[in-house]
């Protein structure tokens, strides 16, 4: 079961990695998005931005309790990186200086709306930096499992949970398929290997066009 879940996460992260271009400045949310760098081709070097205050997030070398990623975990900084305060960090994020952000989602809909920060009466995590990221990054990719743990589609005709951002999502990557958000709604761009169209249709509440 754990094996299978890891598998699913890997499939999603691997597909997201193909969206990255050499030199891109990327901000990765916690969860599946953090796996993306593991699947980057060797000739694609990206620069990771960490919204808690630096550019050049890299592998952990020495442990310094003052050097953590946006999930609060110990991390490293690559040569060429830079530290700054939270104000400057969000100037970069909101100002369009981050090329791609990859985030998890609770729900995404056909208008590119994203919900991932609160389930009323239940989970109130807070939006953290997510609202700024989806508003400011040039490209917003939602990387998530296609269905909830209860088996219901997370890709909806219209989000029911409170939104993180309105009309902000560019691409949705799940273990079943890849959708782009266009002015005419969702477009199925790809079906993941070993998945058939019927499964995608069956598991997707939102209507979508097929490219």
């Amino acid at each position, binding site marked *: 079961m754990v094996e299978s879940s890891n598998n699913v996460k890997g499939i999603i992260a691997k597909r997201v990695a193909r969206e990255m271009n050499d030199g891109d400045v990327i901000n990765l949310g916690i969860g599946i998005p953090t796996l993306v760098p593991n699947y980057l081709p060797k000739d694609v070097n990206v620069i990771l931005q960490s919204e808690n205050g630096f550019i050049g997030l890299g592998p952990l070398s020495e442990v310094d309790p003052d050097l*953590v990623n946006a*999930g609060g975990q110990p991390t490293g900084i690559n040569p060429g990186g830079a530290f700054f305060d939270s*104000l400057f960090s*969000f100037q970069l994020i909101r100002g369009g200086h981050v090329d791609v952000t990859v985030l998890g989602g609770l729900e995404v809909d056909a208008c590119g709306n994203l919900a991932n920060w609160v389930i009323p009466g239940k989970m109130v995590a807070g939006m953290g930096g*997510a609202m700024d990221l989806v508003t400011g990054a040039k490209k917003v990719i939602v990387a998530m499992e296609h269905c909830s743990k209860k088996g219901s589609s997370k890709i909806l005709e219209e989000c029911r949970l*409170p939104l993180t951002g309105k009309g902000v999502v560019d691409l949705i990557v799940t273990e079943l398929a890849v959708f782009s958000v266009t002015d005419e709604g969702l477009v199925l761009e790809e079906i993941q290997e070993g998945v058939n169209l019927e499964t995608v249709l069956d598991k997707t509440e939102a209507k979508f066009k097929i490219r």
Partner: protein
Amino acid sequence: MDKTILVDELLPIFKDGLTIMIGGFMGVGTSAKLVAALMESNVKDITLIVSDTATPEKGVGPLIVNSRVRKLIVSHIGTNPETGKQMIAGDIEVELVPQGTLAERIRSGGSGLGGILTPTGVGTSVAEGKEIIRVDGRDYLLETPLRADVALLKAKKADKSGNLVYNRSARNFNPIMALAADLVIAEVDEIVEIGEIDPEDVVTTGILVDKILV
């Protein structure tokens, strides 16, 4: 003018009902000594302005766990379950603010601005009750300034005039909070003579810092 202070001298400063900003992100860059002093002072009904409530043990977590906070202005509470519990029970009032907006509001409060227009939160519940202003064909939320009575900072090093240098990702909210409170107190790991910090390296100028706790 010696700005250094002992913990005992801090205690009378802390009073019930104060608005306090505390630097840090997930507890990193939060002054453990100043939070401990707050705990020791037994103050309550604090309005706390902070990035997140870290964990029950870390950062400002103990202030939440021990019910010292009446109102919280914050971007993330998910890592400290106690915050959500008190929020649902109605024991603590929580205003959730997007992290970039929180930074901007603090900077506005410290920079004499009446606020900023941000696209963040447009079309979400964050926009409720806020003025929407259209500039150049795009909608923005008017987000207003935040200030505090006291700001509690954590830095790596100070000189005796209060110039501060931070360590790595522990910088986060500390430099902007230094601008936005009537009384600014910094815990530092090391204090050096005036002149030992290169003026190019200073991140927070000493004119913003009132008290230094080593």
